[in-house]
């Protein structure tokens, strides 16, 4: 039963981390902090996949998933940082409120 509780608690912690990440996405004004929020949520997702592999006994498969996932995550982070820096060059700051030209 104790083993079971561990998994539940990992699930709950992951859930709270996703909430924290999405909250960060929605609430913050800084472009890079938005990306950090995404990373926080991604940590939780990584943990979920490992948990899933742990529960169903296919930890090796889960590991391969996680490795692939981390690679894509890093590339997305690089692209996002590049976009953020380009936006900084345009506007002189990293305020997300600059991004209101396209609307309606």
């Amino acid at each position, binding site marked *: 039963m104790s083993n079971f509780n561990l998994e539940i608690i990992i699930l709950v912690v992951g859930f709270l981390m996703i909430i924290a990440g*999405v909250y960060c*996405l*929605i609430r913050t004004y800084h472009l890079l902090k*938005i990306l950090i929020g995404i990373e926080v949520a991604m940590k939780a997702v990584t943990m979920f996949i490992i948990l899933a592999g742990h529960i169903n006994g296919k930890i090796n498969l889960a590991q391969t998933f996680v490795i692939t996932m981390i690679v894509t995550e890093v590339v997305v982070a690089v692209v996002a940082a590049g976009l953020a820096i380009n936006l900084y060059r345009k506007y002189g700051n990293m305020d*997300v409120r600059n*991004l*209101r030209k396209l*609307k*309606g």
Partner: protein
Amino acid sequence: MFSYDMFNTLMDSISSFLSHGANIILFMIVLPLIWGIIGWLLKKNYLLQLAVVVLSSTINILFALSLYLSKGFYVTFPFASSGLDIAFNIYKFSALFLMFIAIGFFLVTLYGTAFLRNEKHAGIFLLYMYISLAILNGAILSDNLGVMLFFWEGLLCTLFGMLVTNNEQKPRAAVKALVLSGTADLLLMLGIIITVYRAGTPFISQMGKLSITGVSTVGFMCMMLGAIGKAGCMPFHSWIPVAAGDAPVPFMVAFPGAIEKLLGIYLAVRIVIDIYDFRSGSISSIVIMVIGTLTIIFAVAMALIQKDMKRLLSYHAISQVGYMVLGIGTALPIGIIGGLFHMLNNAIYKSCLFMTAGSIEKQTGTTDLKKVGGLGKRMPITMICFMISGFAIAGLPPFNGFFSKELIFDAALESHLIFYLGALLGAFMTAVSFLKMGRAAFSGPLKFPENSPGKLASGKNGFHESNISVRESDIGMLLPMVIMAFLSIIFGIINTLPLDKLLGSALGYNKTYSGWPHSMLLVVVSFIILGLALLDHIYGYRKTGSAINAADHIHYAPLLKNIYNAAEKQWFDPYNHLMYVVNGFSTFCTLVERSISWVYDYGAVKIVEGAGNLLHRLNNGSLSRYLFAAVAGVAGIVVIFLVVLL
């Protein structure tokens, strides 16, 4: 040399060619359409149009003749479902009508082309005429009532189209014709539905003879009313006089004069002979006869007081239908063949009469009897044709009208005396009105309006007898007239040809109805009536001093005066009463429509605008709002899952 054998072989080969596959559709229906399009594209090129008319009519007559001479055949084209098969039944009766139509079409179209020479509508007139020919061929050949109805409605479209073309700004006659003929067609449709339901098959040849009882009575009456309504019988007649005022003569010659009667009476005879077991003395027979008699008397009484040639003739066109309906309504062989023969004769002399009126209009610019007179010297051939046709319609031997009328009188007398008396009254007034019209137009001193085409051609020297160029018409207009007049005489003198050789054999009657009428009493009575008419005319002429007012003493007779006033105010016109109902209904509909359109114009637009504006303003470009919407979307999906799962 061209021998009779060669001719026979040619006819046989044509008919066997037509009976093969889809050739009959191709050559009887599609080919006229192609001719029509060619004629339309020629626009104002008179000579080429004339060539097209002659060539196409020759081919059409040849086809019709070959079908008539053939043994007859049955062609079926399978369609989507078995009830919609296009089936053509070619036998003596239908082929005979095809031939009539082919010949009549030739003359009418020739006349029309000549009449509309170099005019704007010449091309479109030809197109409509050829479409009508295709439709007529199709309607007469069809064995399937549904397919026939399709063609039948097509004729309504060409009718409407022609009337609209002639008067685009105020298509009064067109709308009236559409409403009245449309109502008649609706009745026909209803009748067809009931008939097909009762018979269990849409094919006429499989129907046998349905007895007229119960719901079949309704079906029979509806079909009959539709058919004779197409022919112009009361109560679907009142558009014809209006059209006479608006439309040019070729239209009047073609539609109310010939085509519609041919088709309407054809169907009426098919109903009476093939579809229903129609007995003489039955209620439905009496109803039909009453309708016929009323039509005769009312229409001819209206004709009597008309002072315009086209209107006068159009009322006669209605009254003559009454004779045919009366004849067919007797349900006696002699009546049916008399009605058919009368229809044939009427097509001949009525077309001829319209054509003479058209010639006068072409030359003087008017058909008002008050403005013209003494044209006999200038237009002798027209006058002779008019006289022959006038005698024929009045029922003077030896012209064709006399023989057909005597047959109908015979049948009417056999049914009931009162119908006979009604028909005699009609004959009397017909004769009176034609005496009036003929004398007013052709005898006396020459007179025609100032602004007539003939006057204009005379130059600037003013009104002088030697400058007047009112003269005989073109050969293209004269030829059909003369042929019609000639046919009137031929069908009168050699009446065995149409009666026994054509109609009798086509209907399968063994008895001969040709020759001099067998009952001498009737002939004597007819002569007395004609004499009375002459006396009346002379009396009226003496009293008023002019031919045109010769019928005024009847018009202004104490009691009749009131009736005529009412009729002039169109109290007897069912169209007007129909229009009151329709207007009331349309006012109601307008109210409903306004309230609905308010919803569309304001309510719905406001809602859409409001929703659009709200969404538009909600999307302010802020990224956090985008993300929030996405998270809310997930919540929405969760709700949907919960609703479905719990």
